[in-house]
């Protein structure tokens, strides 16, 4: 598969290594020149220095027709723009990103991003699950509020998409 990894630091480093190790074609796009040099020394993949939120940069990085884009910047709105540009301007069918605000898991999904992953949400679920296992009585759910989130299912929406992504990579 052809995967574009945009932004990020240690997550990008790790992901690029894993994907390249599995034999996928990877391009890493990062606006930090020094970090680009670091990645270039660590991994034998194409590294493109530039701001991945700009259509011109994605175009110059040649991501058109890639299978997956992964947006790992620290800003949810930047990751959103990267995913939408990749999807609508560059025909990338699977868009994944991290989000700092767990609320955006549902919001991004409803706006057409394949999956938005929140470490904070995963942590809350893990705590919830371990509380449920150890307690005899039922526990109050760690809700994320009503309104837009009322219909959020028990399973985070990203689980299926990410599960599918990893299966495609042959990780089972």
């Amino acid at each position, binding site marked *: 598969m052809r995967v574009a990894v945009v932004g990020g630091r240690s997550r990008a480093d790790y992901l690029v290594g894993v994907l390249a190790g599995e034999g996928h074609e990877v391009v890493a796009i990062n606006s930090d020149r020094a970090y680009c040099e670091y990645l270039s020394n660590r991994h034998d993949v194409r590294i493109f220095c530039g701001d991945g939120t700009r259509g011109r940069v994605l175009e110059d990085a040649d991501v058109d027709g890639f299978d997956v884009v992964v947006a790992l910047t620290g800003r949810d709105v930047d990751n959103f723009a990267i995913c939408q540009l990749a999807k609508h301007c560059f025909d990338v069918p699977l868009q994944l990103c991290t989000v700092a605000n767990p609320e955006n898991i549902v919001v991004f999904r409803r*706006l057409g991003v394949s999956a938005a992953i929140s470490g904070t949400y995963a942590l809350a679920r893990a705590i919830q699950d371990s509380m449920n296992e150890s307690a005899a009585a039922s526990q109050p759910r760690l809700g994320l509020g009503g309104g*837009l989130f009322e219909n959020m299912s028990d399973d985070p929406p990203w689980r299926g998409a990410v599960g599918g992504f990893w299966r495609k990579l042959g990780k089972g």
Partner: protein
Amino acid sequence: MLGSARVMIVGCGDFGSTLASALSRQGFAVVAIDMREDAFDLLDGDFDGEAVTGDGGIVSVLEECGIAHASYLVAATGCEMTNFFIAEVASELYGVEHVLPRVESTALVRLLDDLNASPICPRLICVDEFYRLSGLDAGSVVRS
């Protein structure tokens, strides 16, 4: 009636505050949202709307401020990515009729056009204004 039309303006900088003041004077019900409380110092003294301190880039904040009932949503923060996101939220999730984000990037403008939003692109507006003020013809070629 004008009084019932609700305008939500996210970002109370120079553009947002000038617009909020003008619309309030016209009789619209204006809600101005900004992360910084001192941003509201830019509003006119006779501003008659609501000024809410909060992050308009967070959907639950927009919801609490009544985005579902807004007829107009102006995304005027200093960050075009945030404005782009707010515009998509307003248009796709809340069905706001008039969505006007300030965005410079050509690619994002194109995406917003597809969504029925009306992006405001200062870069292009300024170029148009240059031609208007200078009297030069944008279509003509100058030969030396």
